[in-house]
């Protein structure tokens, strides 16, 4: 039985409870909901008129137009459907780094659990896929409330191991979830950036609304090390004996270049990108991100 409180912090979810995870793009659901559907149906949102065709439901004939223009047109409405959200959580070795209260894996899992809670609360469906070089754990997309435990269990069982292979995983996700929905990638993205971006583009091409939560530790962002240090790769056999003070400038330059590229390419592909420090309070980070999405959605 998984510890439900390990990844779901009551205080955090309480703070984000009033927010919504809204799909910025059209998603395909099974039932009516708060998200736009590619299918036309009864809805309060008028979309367009169409010439009447035999077989159309007469209830949808716009009699006002017939009275004025003497032609039969049918009113079409935008259908609202439920959201199918898939949380792609990186559980590779690199995610186990963390000098603060939580390592990146724990933080990512908490983000995933909180989002799952939020999605389920909206009566949308959510699933999870924990991966490193392979898919380690998987929870199907469901909308029932009790599904949260399944998600937490999947996250909990997927201990960090192996290195990240981003593109194969994203491609597999695209194929596993053919219906357009929301793909939330929670990772440190410390993998081949070309593969990562290629995978993200693939998801977008498949019509998914893609969100990227880029989780990095303070140490990785600030590189505050001093004194002689031996750095040993978490996902490789590389190691380096150095005085980190001397390498910091070059390290930060390379890191920022990487972050900038991620940010820019995500923006170009209409992918929401959020860089989150593990030291940042989870609720604050999520609230900030979700609020900004709502704002964009409103426009």
């Amino acid at each position, binding site marked *: 039985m998984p510890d439900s409180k390990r990844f779901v912090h009551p205080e955090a979810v309480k703070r984000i409870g009033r927010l919504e995870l809204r799909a910025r793009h059209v998603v395909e659901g099974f039932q009516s909901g708060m998200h736009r559907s590619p299918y036309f149906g009864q809805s309060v949102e008028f979309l367009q008129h169409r010439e009447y065709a035999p077989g159309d439901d007469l209830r949808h004939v716009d009699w006002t137009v017939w009275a004025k223009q003497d032609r039969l047109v049918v009113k079409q409405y935008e259908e609202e459907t439920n959201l199918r959200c898939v949380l792609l959580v990186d559980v590779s070795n690199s995610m186990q780094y963390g000098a603060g209260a939580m390592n990146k894996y724990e933080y990512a899992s908490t983000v995933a659990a909180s989002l799952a809670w939020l999605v389920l609360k909206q009566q949308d469906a959510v699933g999870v896929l924990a991966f490193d070089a392979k898919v380690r754990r998987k929870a199907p997309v469901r909308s029932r409330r009790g599904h949260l435990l399944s998600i937490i269990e999947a996250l909990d069982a997927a201990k960090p191991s192996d290195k990240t292979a981003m593109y194969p995983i994203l491609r597999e996700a695209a194929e596993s979830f053919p219906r357009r929905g929301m793909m939330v990638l929670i990772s440190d993205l410390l993998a081949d950036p070309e593969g990562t971006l290629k995978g993200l583009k693939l998801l977008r091409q498949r019509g998914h609304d893609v969100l990227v939560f880029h989780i990095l530790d303070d140490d990785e962002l600030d590189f505050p090390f001093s004194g002689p240090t*031996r750095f040993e790769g978490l996902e490789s056999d590389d190691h*380096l004996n150095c005085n980190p003070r001397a390498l910091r400038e070059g390290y930060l330059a390379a890191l920022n270049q990487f972050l900038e590229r991620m940010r820019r390419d995500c923006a170009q592909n209409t992918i929401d990108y959020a860089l989150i420090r593990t030291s940042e309070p989870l609720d604050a980070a999520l609230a900030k991100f979700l609020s900004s999405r709502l704002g964009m959605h409103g426009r």
Partner: protein
Amino acid sequence: MLYSLFSTPVLLSLLGLAAVPILIHLINMMRHRRVQWAAMDFLLASYKKHRNWIWLKQLILMLMRVAAILLAVLMLAGVGCREDQFASFFGGRTTHHYVLLDDSFSMSERVGGAFAFDRALQVVKNIAQHTREGEGRQRFTLIRFSRAAASAAETASVPSAAKPASQEPGSDRTQRPAATNAQRANSPDAAVVADLNAEYVDSEFDERLEEVTRGLESSQLSVGPTPALQLVRQLLAEKGDENRLVYVVSDFRTNEWSNPTEQKKQLQELAEADAELHLISCVEQEQANLAITDLAPTNETRAAGVPLFVNVMVKNFGRTTARNVQIKVRSTFYDDPQGANPGEAPKQTDDLPPVLIEEIAPGDTALGRTQVFFPKSGVHVVEAELPADPVVADNHRYAVIDFPAAETVLLIDGDADARNLFYLSAAFQPGSRANTGVVVDPQPATFLNAATREQLAQYKAIFLCDVRRFDAPAIEALETYVQDGGGVAIYVGPNVNIQAYNGTLYRDGAGFFPLPLEKEGYLVAPLEQAEPDLQVEDHPVFAPLLGERNPLLQLVNVHQYLAAPAAWRPDPDSGVRVLARLRDRAPLVVEKSFGKGRVMAFLTTAAPIWNNWATGPSFVVVTLKLQSHLAGAGRDSTSYPVGSELPLALPAGKYQAEVTFVAPGANPEIPVVFVKPASAEKANAPEIFTSLGGSSLSRFQETARSGIYEAWPRTSDGAPDVRRFAVNVEPEEGRLDHVPPRELLTILEPLTPTVSDWQEYDTRNLDFLDLGGFRWSRYLFYVLIALLLGEQVMAYFTSYHPARANRQSS
């Protein structure tokens, strides 16, 4: 340079601190922290990109730290103020102060409650204090005149490099590093001679100077500035590039500086060696001073129980007449020292009636006379003392007088009836109640053939009367005796073989007989006794008979004698002098100095054979004076100058090989005791030698005080045989007139030294001294500061400094 710098273990260990940054680096390399790191790609990219620059920065940082530590250690080690080469590198020069301190006894002049020497010491301290306050590195050398003079004398007296000077006992400088013999033979070792040798003026210098000057007082030596100037000249030649100031702190007495040819030459050489000359006078106005220049017994027979006159000579060095000068005279009679410890011989000191000299004109020397009497034989002492005046040292004078039980005279008479012996013996022993102190030892002529040197040495004089001829051993013994200081009187007579005398005794002037003989001469009695037969010169032997009122010599008639060739004249350089002539101008009494002794030839008989002299009263007087005169040449010198060597020769085998000397101390109640070994110069030599004091830097101090010195040799059976020496100051040093500064400048032209009064050498007034120098230690300090700042900057740029504000904003 660096060898001397880091010769101490402390500095070496401090130098090891320079390795600390390297060690820390190596330790850190071994003790690094392990971090499991995710973003290795960025780290490796940074490392690949900056590897060379990082290494360079790290290397520079480490080198800066090493350099900073090295620099700090160097400064701590005093490199900042000790190494001339460093200073030269930075363009600066050391300023070296050579202070020559006059410590002759004229500097003991008391002026206004203080001694001139104390003023001189204050001047030295003021110079030192001023130099310490000055910029740049300062060295300080202090040389006393006395030590420089002793060193110069030692150098002059030790031509060979074989003399083990460093092994001399009693050396007060044994802690100093001993110079090599070769160095000492060629030039004085400044480290040994100088009280302070090129000492750096630093925070500890005052303490060292105080240590050196504490208890320092003027000596009783009479030494001029020349040896000290010569020493400084040599030091300047040895030293490298430096700013030189030479100070002569003296009293500039007239006897040394009124015509200072040698001093001027030395100062000229110093000036040519780029030395800045400063002459500082420590006296102001001239004071009157009286000095006892001599205290000596008259040249009379000295024997126990025989009164003896002692002459006291007092000189007035002042510019006004001294009146009613009262001289205290003390005699000290020493009893048998058997059983006494050295310096504790039983003695009795008596104050004799003072000698009063009514008047001594400026520059004149007056004679006072007193009579001493010692009932027993021995080596006794007479001391004279003047009333207190500005200079104390020359107010005392000492004399040691050897009073034997009697003076023995060897008398050999060739007359068959021994008539000469009779009359001479009668002259020496005129009556049972009259003690002349002379004992006659009559011997046959053959006695001389077998007489040894030691046998003859016990005779104060030898009288040879009418001896026909002398065999070769006798002649050799007699010549040796005279050369050693003995006195021989030769009376001729009818038995004398003229050819033998000429061939063996005269030997064309090479022998000890004063003149050649030619034939017997006859003096015809004049018809009128207008002119005496005997005409004498002014000589101690005839001194009592001189004077027109004294008719005694007129009673002497000589009718026969041995005549010298008519053409014979004494060579002025031969030491031959005619003391008495006959009426016909023929020489009658001729004296010759031979070696240390003297020979008097009387060309007539002693007995009234060829004359009537022995029948008159003048014969006794002349005979006694003759004995005193002849014996006087062999009497030991009783006075030694301060600082000289007191020699002692002892028969080998009869004395122990260790002699204790007792010297007067600063406190009269506490004598200073030296124990000296006595040894022979060669194996199986007849005598062993030892001495106290001498022309050696380490030994001159042993006799640097006037007074009575005692040597306590002990015979093989342990009995003491005390010898005494009178050591007196050089009286001319008591001349207190000095050369005024302006006059001194004129005398020393074209030299242009600064001539100052001691009062001008107040520390507040010494700004005129060119301390020059270059305090390059300050620049070292600046470099150190720059290095430390650079290290901080470099460390800052090679380290990470988190900025909170930036983090919060991000």
